[in-house]
């Protein structure tokens, strides 16, 4: 095994593991698919360790697991436009969809007793669930018999979580279920939760709950710094389409604005762009108070104005209170505009415009 892996120098095919699996099939054609996957995982594991924790300084730069993708792009450069067609290195689980292993033996007899229901994993799950419900009831009866039944036992802390959706359940069971089946499953789970001593099966229940994501990403307020003259200032960046901008807002007292070294009246002769610059300051009511020094590059005049507006709003946050910052967020000043240019499709003249339709 090891000699095989080490003898492999830089292959230059689509997926490193695909190549290896092809290679395997060529040498060992009688191996089954899962054995191949196992070896591929093993190879992946070895490569992760060897390539990226190599003592030689050339690769020791890329020891962090995030840089794995950048280092693959560096080692196997590709001129293909489609990003998904370039060489990549991922865990086989992420690449190959989960498939069900073969469910009957060499004699054709299925392994699972519920195979002929059609949805064996779903029905086995329901059976398991019901068995647990009965188990909890038996436990409760035993406690009542002993007289140790307490009215308020320890409850499961669900926190902010929800039941798995139908799609997620299908993904865990690796088989399709109908919405009726899903409803039944949820009903039974709810019934189990409602029982006082459901904490017995806490681990099982939590397996089928999904944590809700943390609420909206909290706005990172740039820190307020002081320069040599004792003037407060803060820096922030903003972007829109292809423009990137960076702004330094100083608490000077004059209303001067410089963009790329030029006066803003010269840089933005159009009123609309200056209005965009004015919006955050006017919204916060601090029009004549701050001094702005900005740099902007890329894009056209409108997108540069939008990038500057976002940067100004972010920088202003450090001078304003929480409520005012919240008001700005609700006004949409702190949201980067996600609209970018839509790609042109083949067979059409533009992104949406079709060629002229000729009747004949």
């Amino acid at each position: 095994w090891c000699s095989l892996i080490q003898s492999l120098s830089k292959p230059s095919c689509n997926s490193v593991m695909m190549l290896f699996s092809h290679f395997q099939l060529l040498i060992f054609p009688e191996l089954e698919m899962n054995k191949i996957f196992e070896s591929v995982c093993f190879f992946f594991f070895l490569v992760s360790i060897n390539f990226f924790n190599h003592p030689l300084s050339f690769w020791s730069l890329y020891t962090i697991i995030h840089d794995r993708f950048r280092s693959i792009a560096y080692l196997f450069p590709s001129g293909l436009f489609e990003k998904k067609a370039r060489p990549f290195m991922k865990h086989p689980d992420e690449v190959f969809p989960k498939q069900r292993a073969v469910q009957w033996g060499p004699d054709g007899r299925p392994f699972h007793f519920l195979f002929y229901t059609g949805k064996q994993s779903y029905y086995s799950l329901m059976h398991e669930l019901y068995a647990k419900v009965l188990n909890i009831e038996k436990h409760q009866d035993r406690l009542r018999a002993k007289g140790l039944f307490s009215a308020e036992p320890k409850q499961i802390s669900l926190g902010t979580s929800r039941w798995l959706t139908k799609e997620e359940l299908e993904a865990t069971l690796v088989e399709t279920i109908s919405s009726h089946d899903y409803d039944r499953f949820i009903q039974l789970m709810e019934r189990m939760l409602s029982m006082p001593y459901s904490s017995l099966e806490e681990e099982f229940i939590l397996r089928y709950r999904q944590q809700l994501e943390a609420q909206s990403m909290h706005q990172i307020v740039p820190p307020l710094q002081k320069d040599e003259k004792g003037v407060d200032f803060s820096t922030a960046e903003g972007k829109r389409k292809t423009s990137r901008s960076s702004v330094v807002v100083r608490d000077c007292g004059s209303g001067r604005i410089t963009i790329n070294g030029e006066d803003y009246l010269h840089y933005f002769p159009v009123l609309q762009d200056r209005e965009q610059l004015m919006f955050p300051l006017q919204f916060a009511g601090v029009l004549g108070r701050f001094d702005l020094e900005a740099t902007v590059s890329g894009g056209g005049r409108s997108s540069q104005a939008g990038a500057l507006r976002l940067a100004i709003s972010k920088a202003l946050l450090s001078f304003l209170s929480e409520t005012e910052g919240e008001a700005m967020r609700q006004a949409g000043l702190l949201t980067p505009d996600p609209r970018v240019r839509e790609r042109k499709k083949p067979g059409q003249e533009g992104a949406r415009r079709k060629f002229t339709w000729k009747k004949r």
Partner: protein
Amino acid sequence: MSLHRLALRLRPTVKHARCLHTSGSIQQQEAVAAEPEPESLSVFRTQEKDPACHSEKHIGHFYTLPPAHVRPLFPNSLPWRYQQQTKTFNETCIMVRQPALEVISYLKKADYSQPAVRYLFYGLRGSGKTMSLCHALHYCYAQGWLVLHVPDAHQWVKNCKELLPSSYSSSRFDQPLQATTWLRNFKVTNEPFLSKIKTKERYMWTKRESTEAGSPLGELVDQGISRVKSSSDVVGAVMKELRLQSGQQGAGFHLVVAVDGVNALWGRSTIKKEDKTAVDPEELTLVYNLRKLMRNDWSGGAIITTLSQTGSLYAPKSAYLPQELLGERGFDSMDAFVPVSVPNYSEKEFESCYLYYMDRNWLQHPLSRTEEGKKELIFLSNRNPSVLERLCGFL
């Protein structure tokens, strides 16, 4: 800011009257008594109609030009937008600003036996150079000088509909239309001088027509207006006469040459000859003669000019300094000049302009009359006069 508070205090109550000429010091107590003149209580206006009496105290104030002066002095030679404004507001008001006051003070102190001094207004686009020129010109007119005003030298080097080869010199070109327009305006402006000044030389226009020496200037000008073909040469003759005569002892008049957009004289032109080659401004009679006037080899007057990027040809938008706009040749020809920088409005001037628009009911939008609206206007225009004017135009 205090000016505005003062205006707010003054506006509702008529009892608190103020003496306008002492409005320089704002920190006055609210005088209850004193009924001086029951005039208009505008803090931004001044009643002083004579530019000679304008001083530092009047900076930021608007003064009205008497209608009797406006028609002769500026027959179609004011900037277009300003002309529209005067028609709307029914009055011609100019703001007294520092650059114009500076030039007027130099004009007052100048020695007119020395060669003429050249003054050049320069500044960013829309900062008020032409209006300063008009203010200085009004001073000269009020003093009774002879005004030779070229409203826009750029008009002479572009959009020429008729280009004739010059009758005087074969290498040059004539522009009859522009010359006749200019002669007409000159006639309107300088009516009283036309009969007083006599020509010193004899001019032959064609084999049969000529103007004798000793005939009044008016005749020369009429000749140019009626005989369109020779009008450019008439212009040249007029300029030569005035140049020769202004410094003389017994002349009895001062000459002021005011040219707006003087960088056109040394720039490039977009006029094309028949063989599609570009015409050098030197080859145009009008420009050639005007350049001779710009040389300070004559005395008894002054030359006041402005640079202008707006109408200029082949000049980048960001250029506003004399070296950039005049070019090498122009800078060398204008070499000894007094540059006067014209900045954007200061805070006080901006207040004044804002109050003027409010007074004329030009700002219709209710929000524009509030403090917040004023701050927005300051931000959006960056106190640039022309941008502010365009902004308030649709409010």
